[in-house]
């Protein structure tokens, strides 16, 4: 804290890049652009300078390798790997050596001038657009120069960092030093650095334009990452206000966390299972905090869509493995690619009704290479995670689709076994119940599946004939509709009769009272966005299974959506 008393409280604002409030003292981070020696070296000094260069390369590479081990974020690993490739660049090595030995440049000046040449050509050829990417190149140059000059930054642990701008590499390395928050002059909320800060959950405000001008090292600041506000030299009352906000937030958080540690049982002792729906590994930090018991729905579309034809099986395996590692010992349900054909075969294939069209398993069966690649990746992953993977098939509408898929699974399994790869041959195969005909014939479908997962989002849209994206009729879309409950009941009973466990992974499972009703129908496994997990758990724990059964019975007798709303709000006030 500053000793001077005459500092006036000051507000600066930027773009919120990662929520969370922190109060603390700052460290000012300045990129050290070391003073480059402009002298010439003697011929017999060259060897020494070349050795220094390779030492710096080794140190920088070791640092990056260490960062690589501590991050499982795709964006970070790509960046770090690119920087490692630069350090290993044989041409860079030759040129720097040449500059030292033939031009008698000292090592720092040699590094500086060779990088300057590269950056010049790169900027010239790429034009403006490359500005962003050249940051990562100059960043690794600066790190090399810092190492050569043996410079250390003077960032104190546990402080809030203030910088002009930060490279992604810098943020990753700061996160290992207990930095409480980040404030930058430049950058936007969607910048690479902001994305990385968010995934590491460091409260961050970017683009303040003047933070480094008005904040000194050691000043006290309040950083409010929810709205992008920074208070410099906070007054006593401001500090008090934010402290109570922080206390409130952490109390709620602590309440949630302690609630989530309690057993998953209703007040009369019936067990239930709460899982998370996720798409990225980063989402698991919150799921794990709230004690989600595995992943009930792992969406695989995002990796698919960013990889043309998705031929990179190893990349898929790495993705699945990263999720499984972070969720041990629980199960992970991998849903096969669930997208419409129009999404990756271009506009010429555009359909009039994509939701009723060529998507999910319908499309996959006609793209055997695509499907086989994903299955290969899943089975390959299974060798290290026996008994923990389940496969979920989207958009199933006929028994024939399941037969065909099972044949392809057999083929893939045989191929892998022939290649000597140890695989989990017992991976359960489950069906998404999202088409009304499947729900109505659940008894038949349940006989062909190891488990059923009800996708209430699409089931609602198909049953009520309401396009949820169409604003003019969005009032007609409601997952609590009596018809939906009727279908869910059919599926729950069919699963029970045929020994196929039933779970729900749609939005209905994020609605705490609806979840009580699902429990009452005998569906005890729910998968949801982890954020709502504490609220769902709270309600399940504070009610009895017997009450939930009564609730379900009433709901099944309801005639209209209004009836259901009434039943639900009465149930709520009963609390």
């Amino acid at each position: 804290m500053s000793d001077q008393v005459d500092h006036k409280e000051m507000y600066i604002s930027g773009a919120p890049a990662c929520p969370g409030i922190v109060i603390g003292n700052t460290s000012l981070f300045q990129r050290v652009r070391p003073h480059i020696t402009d002298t010439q070296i003697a011929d017999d000094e060259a060897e020494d300078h070349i050795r220094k260069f390779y030492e710096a390369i080794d140190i920088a590479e070791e640092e990056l390798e260490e960062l690589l081990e501590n991050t499982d974020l795709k964006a970070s690993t790509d960046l770090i790997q690119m920087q490692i490739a630069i350090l290993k660049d044989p041409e860079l090595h030759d040129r720097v050596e040449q500059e030292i030995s033939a031009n008698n440049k000292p090592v720092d000046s040699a590094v500086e001038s060779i990088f300057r040449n590269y950056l010049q050509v790169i900027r010239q050829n790429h034009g403006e657009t490359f500005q962003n990417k050249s940051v990562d190149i100059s960043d690794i140059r600066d790190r090399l120069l810092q190492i050569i000059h043996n410079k250390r930054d003077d960032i104190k642990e546990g402080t809030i960092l203030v910088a002009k701008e930060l490279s992604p590499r810098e943020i990753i390395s700061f996160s290992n030093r207990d930095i409480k928050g980040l404030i930058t002059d430049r950058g936007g909320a969607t910048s690479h650095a902001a994305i990385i800060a968010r995934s590491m959950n460091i409260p961050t405000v970017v683009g303040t334009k003047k933070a480094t001008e008005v904040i000194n090292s050691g000043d006290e600041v309040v950083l409010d990452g929810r709205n992008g506000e920074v208070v410099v030299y906070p007054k006593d009352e401001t500090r008090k206000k934010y402290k109570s906000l922080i206390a409130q937030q952490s109390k709620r958080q602590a309440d949630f966390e302690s609630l989530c540690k309690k057993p998953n049982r209703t007040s009369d002792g019936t067990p239930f299972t709460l899982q998370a729906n996720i798409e990225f590994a980063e989402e698991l930090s919150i799921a794990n905090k709230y004690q989600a018991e595995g992943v009930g729905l792992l969406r695989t579309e995002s990796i698919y869509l960013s990889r043309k034809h998705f031929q990179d099986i190893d990349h898929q395996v790495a993705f699945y493995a990263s999720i499984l590692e972070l969720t041990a010992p629980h199960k992970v349900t991998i849903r096969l690619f669930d997208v419409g054909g129009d999404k990756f075969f271009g506009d010429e294939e555009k359909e009039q009704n994509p939701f009723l069209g060529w998507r999910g398993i319908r499309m996959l069966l006609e793209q055997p290479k695509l499907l086989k690649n994903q299955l290969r990746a899943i089975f390959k992953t299974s060798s290290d995670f026996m008994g923990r993977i389940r496969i979920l098939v989207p958009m199933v509408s006929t028994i024939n689709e399941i037969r065909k898929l099972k044949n392809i699974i057999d083929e893939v399994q045989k191929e892998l076994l022939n290649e000597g790869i140890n695989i989990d041959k017992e991976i359960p195969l489950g069906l998404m119940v999202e088409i009304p005909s499947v729900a109505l014939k659940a008894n038949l479908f349940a006989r062909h599946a190891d488990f059923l997962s009800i996708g209430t989002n699409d089931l609602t849209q198909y049953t009520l004939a309401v396009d949820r994206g169409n604003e003019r009729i969005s009032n007609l879309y409601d997952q609590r509709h009596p018809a939906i409950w009727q279908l869910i009941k059919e599926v729950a009973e069919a699963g029970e009769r045929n020994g196929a466990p039933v779970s729900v992974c749609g939005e209905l499972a994020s609605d705490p009272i609806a979840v009580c009703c699902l429990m009452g129908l005998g569906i005890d496994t729910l998968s949801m966005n982890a954020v709502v997990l504490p609220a769902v758990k709270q309600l399940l724990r504070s009610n009895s299974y017997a009450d939930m059964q009564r609730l379900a019975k009433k709901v099944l007798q309801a005639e209209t959506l209004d009836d259901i709303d009434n039943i639900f709000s009465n149930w709520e006030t009963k609390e």
Partner: protein
Amino acid sequence: MIKKKVTIVNDAGLHARPAAALVKLASKFESDFYIHLYGYKVNGKSILGVMTLAAEKGAELELELDGPDEKEATEAITELIDDGFGEVYEDENE
């Protein structure tokens, strides 16, 4: 020595990640590897060199390989480029 023309097909072009993948693959082979584009010639095993090319989608590269495993190297490198380095575009969320 083998010379072969290939076209960059991925939307983002030969930017950082693909350049890293290309260099990594090329370094596995013993053969010398050069890329010609717009009158430039760069060492295909040098990531900085490859990045100076600024090859965008549609750019036609000429690969030049020379060495004992030039055939395998040409095949592998061509496949990587034809596959668009396994990407259509850079996904913001990744």
